[in-house]
């Protein structure tokens, strides 16, 4: 995977976030502090601008710059969480990114998110979309699927994980203050993570 491909992925993610900014914020207003859409839009707009201003020479540098921009520009908890995801992806990416390499990088990013946020599966967070996506991607790559099919499987797993957050009771973040009242709402972080995987399936194969 070239730096240009990764930039195309992140640019597509930024587009999807921008298009769905109001929906993301509406989800967050139901169970959080009503800023997920505007925060992610601000952060990803800054990422696209930073990558355009000085295009990084390799894949790891794209991921590092993306992470460093997000931890600074998002403002909410998604900043450190998405920022850590990309910063941790940069490590494995230094060896070059083929399909298996991308899966390993995404897994490293996921583990970074787990360590940073201390959320577990079922806590009604982005982990509930990202974990299933990593599992599906690993399984598809291990089974010999071409990258396009593997990323499509990861995107569907993320979307299913997002949908499965609806009945959950939030145990992390601002939504956890609501307790049982958080059940019945789709998690905004899992929703934006599903967009990240959708963007990957559309651009990285």
């Amino acid at each position, binding site marked *: 995977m070239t730096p240009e491909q990764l930039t195309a992925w992140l640019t597509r993610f930024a587009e999807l976030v921008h298009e769905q900014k109001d929906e993301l914020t509406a989800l967050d207003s139901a169970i959080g502090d009503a800023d997920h859409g505007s925060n992610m839009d601000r952060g990803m707009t800054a990422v696209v601008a930073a990558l355009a201003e000085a295009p990084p020479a390799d894949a790891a540098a794209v991921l590092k710059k993306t992470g*460093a921009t997000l931890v*600074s*520009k998002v*403002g*909410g908890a998604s*900043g*450190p969480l998405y920022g850590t995801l990309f910063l941790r992806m940069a490590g494995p990416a230094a060896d070059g990114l083929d399909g298996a390499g991308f899966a390993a990088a995404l897994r490293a990013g996921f583990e970074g998110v787990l360590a*940073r946020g201390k959320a577990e599966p079922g806590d009604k967070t982005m982990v509930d979309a990202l974990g299933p996506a990593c599992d599906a991607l690993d399984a598809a790559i291990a089974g010999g699927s071409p990258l396009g099919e593997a990323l499509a499987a990861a995107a569907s797993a993320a979307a299913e994980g997002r949908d499965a957050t609806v009945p959950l009771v939030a145990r992390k*973040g601002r939504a956890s203050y609501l307790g049982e009242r958080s059940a019945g709402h789709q998690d905004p972080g899992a929703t934006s993570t599903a967009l990240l995987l959708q963007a990957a399936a559309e651009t990285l194969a």
Partner: protein
Amino acid sequence: MSVGIVVVSHSAALADAAVELARQMLPGRELAVEVAAGMPDGSLGTDAMAVSEAITAADSGDGVVVLMDLGSAVLSAQTALEFLDDDVRARVTLSAAPLVEGLVGAVVVAAGGAGREQVAAEALQGLAPKEAQLR
């Protein structure tokens, strides 16, 4: 030299007011208290890079105790550690203390010349006077 203090908050107004309240305890005394709070456009939020810069600015070599409000302030402070030089990171304590009460306790002992561990311990005791009063 003394231990530096950093306040991380979603809101610049909240952080500045907390620092004002705490500085009342330090008439005529110097103490490095840095704020990393809010977003440049005035909206609520935290910025890990700004926290990292505030820690560096507050550190005179004796270390830094960081007080935070909630949520992303905590995650941004943890993330900020990644961007510090190793020697600076080794002398930073992220405090679980309540922001206002912890800050007041921390500035008093820091201005008195206490070391980082003692400043952090004092911050954690910040709720004790209130608890005693309400018992």
